[in-house]
């Protein structure tokens, strides 16, 4: 790292950070309902968000600071393989279009706050819902931790944090402050805080990327030159593996991996608790569908952003830690004040998803652990209270994770998180369309998928270490593919076989609370809860 603090960049960064902090606290009054003491209000923003708020919220939620740092970093490190993020985000929207409106409808009809609530209602199984809730919480924690890694990368490059000689307190103080503030306004404003801040975050991100994608290539002598230089760099041998560092297009033997990573990640993305939370906070089915037609704008941006990885190579950015490649590129080529804007974009880009993720994890804990197992008679106000405290604990946990453990641990767990979340597909998505699967079969399939996925991932060396790679040979196909998807196939197989067996021995089937018409209900239908706050009560719901 460079020595010394970049004063101008830091001043701009702090300015935006303060502005966002004020917004976070003011947000509690934004579109406030009369009775704010329930989980629907704190944890789902009153289920009142329209198309645009949902768009910003989901965009701020899914395309996180870590994404913005990690995707170009992957391209910087290996070229084409890192670009799978683009087909991944292309494929997730047709999937979302198909199943999430059904989840929205059934959740509104029955007042479900989390996806595990739905599973409990559909299959009448607290055990299955607990398994899925734990999977969600476990997968979300390292994800929050990675948001901190994003902020740390930016602070490092700005020279804040005192370098290697400072003691741990000085070093981590900026991070502690940022997270303390985040925790405070999430506690007081709930989901409304990240929804409001998402506007600033996305505006900044769009400005930075548009400027970067025009300004940097012009400065570096055009795309032709950039890719020529990158191609040259990738051909050079990696001393660790003895193979070329990367390639500009996927090699034939890497195509299965590319496709399965894209598909598997697309299937998992919207089952993360924080995605479900954002989706359920929207006010009608069509808000979700309409969002699948405007969210791809972020995918386009992600593609452009991935190109920055090549630009970092062409600009001769040399970093030991790949995560720093893009912040360093910005610091090298932009004037100081705009570097500050870019860093603020990344920093705030970490706060929004961290807030939503901690709310989502807290909702899971409150509804599917606290209420289901500890206090079945908890009142809505108690639920909101427990959730607020749980959101603090989740953040403290994530902070402890980052401060005490090596960064690669968070990255490994996030990778495992993707594999784990994929194992909730049969119960969740399957459950939205059919009740054929037996609840115990779903639990068995989940356990099989989790075990296989974790074991295989542990057994697979990655580019930089002996464990936690994400692609390995697929049995019976003999090509390398995404472990999560292989585990998912095993999961489905177990579910089908076990269902046949359990049905044959007439194992007791749980009670299904839902009716087929619940899955297509829309705002305004009889029995669907419309909880529009007074400010928007007159607005038409969705059409």
């Amino acid at each position, binding site marked *: 790292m460079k020595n010394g603090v970049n004063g101008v960049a830091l001043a701009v960064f702090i300015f935006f950070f303060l502005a966002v902090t004020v917004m976070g606290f003011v947000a509690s009054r934004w579109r406030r309902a009369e009775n704010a003491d329930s989980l629907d209000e704190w944890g789902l923003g009153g289920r009142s968000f329209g198309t645009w708020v949902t768009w910003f919220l989901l965009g701020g939620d899914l395309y996180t600071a870590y994404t913005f740092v990690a995707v170009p970093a992957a391209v910087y490190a290996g070229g*084409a393989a890192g*670009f799978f993020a*683009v*087909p991944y*985000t*292309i*494929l997730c*929207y*047709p999937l979302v*279009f*198909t199943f999430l409106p059904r989840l929205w409808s059934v959740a509104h009809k029955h007042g479900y706050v989390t996806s595990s609530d739905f599973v409990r209602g559909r299959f009448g199984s607290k055990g299955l819902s607990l398994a899925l809730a734990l999977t969600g919480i476990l997968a979300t924690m390292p994800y929050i931790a990675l948001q901190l890694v994003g902020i740390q990368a930016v602070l490092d490059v700005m020279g804040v944090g005192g370098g290697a000689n400072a003691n741990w307190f000085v070093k981590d103080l900026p991070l502690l402050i940022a997270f303390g503030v985040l925790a405070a306004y999430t506690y007081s404003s709930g989901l409304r805080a990240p929804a409001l801040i998402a506007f600033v975050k996305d505006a900044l991100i769009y400005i930075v990327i548009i400027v970067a994608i025009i300004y940097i290539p012009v400065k570096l002598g*055009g*795309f*032709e*030159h*950039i*890719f020529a230089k990158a191609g040259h760099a990738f051909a050079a041998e990696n001393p660790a593996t003895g193979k070329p560092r990367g390639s*500009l*297009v*996927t*090699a*034939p033997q890497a*195509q299965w991996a*590319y*496709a399965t990573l*894209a*598909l598997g990640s697309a299937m998992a993305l919207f089952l993360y608790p924080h995605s479900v939370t954002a989706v359920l906070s929207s006010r009608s089915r*069509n808000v979700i*569908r*309409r969002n*699948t*037609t405007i969210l*791809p704008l972020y*995918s*386009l941006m992600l*593609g*452009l952003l*991935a*190109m920055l990885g090549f630009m970092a190579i062409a600009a001769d950015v040399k970093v030991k830690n790949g995560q720093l490649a893009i912040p360093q590129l910005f610091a090298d080529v932009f004037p100081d004040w705009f570097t500050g804007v870019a860093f603020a974009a990344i920093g705030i880009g970490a706060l929004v998803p961290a807030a939503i993720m901690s709310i989502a994890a807290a909702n899971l804990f409150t509804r599917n652990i606290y209420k289901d197992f500890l206090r079945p008679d908890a009142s809505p106000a108690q639920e909101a209270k427990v959730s607020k405290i749980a959101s603090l604990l989740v953040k403290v946990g994530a902070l402890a994770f980052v401060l005490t453990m090596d960064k690669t641990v968070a990255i490994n767990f996030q990778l495992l998180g993707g594999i784990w979340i994929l194992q909730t597909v049969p119960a969740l998505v*399957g459950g939205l*369309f*059919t*009740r*054929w*699967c037996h609840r115990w079969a779903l639990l068995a399939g989940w356990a099989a998928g989790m075990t296989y996925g974790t074991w295989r991932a542990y057994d697979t060396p990655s580019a930089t270490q002996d464990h936690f790679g994400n692609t390995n040979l697929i049995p019976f196909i003999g090509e390398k593919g995404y472990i999560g998807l292989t585990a998912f196939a095993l999961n489905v197989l177990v579910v089908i076989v076990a269902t046949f067996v359990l049905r044959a021995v007439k194992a007791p089937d749980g009670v299904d609370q839902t*009716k*087929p*018409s619940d899955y*297509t209900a*829309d705002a305004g239908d009889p029995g669907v809860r419309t909880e529009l706050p007074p400010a928007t009560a007159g607005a038409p719901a969705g059409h």
Partner: protein
Amino acid sequence: MSEPPEGNRKPVVTIPLVVAGVCLAIPFAAMLWVGSYSRVEPAFIGIPFFYWYQMLWVVISTLLTVVAYTIVRRHERTVRAHRGGEEQ
């Protein structure tokens, strides 16, 4: 897997709905067939085919989703109007 019986309202699968389904399925065929776009030429303003082609598909798949959205919304409105008429 078999669907549970739908009670009083059977879902109607119409030709437009099939078209919507096809629109949603096309991006999968295009993106999962990696061999079809895994090459450098033809480049566009210096960007290899591999990259600009996938970015182009962001736009194409969005348009396909818009078509599906229009079809599904129209379908739901008809069903709703129909159902409303029955109940009153």
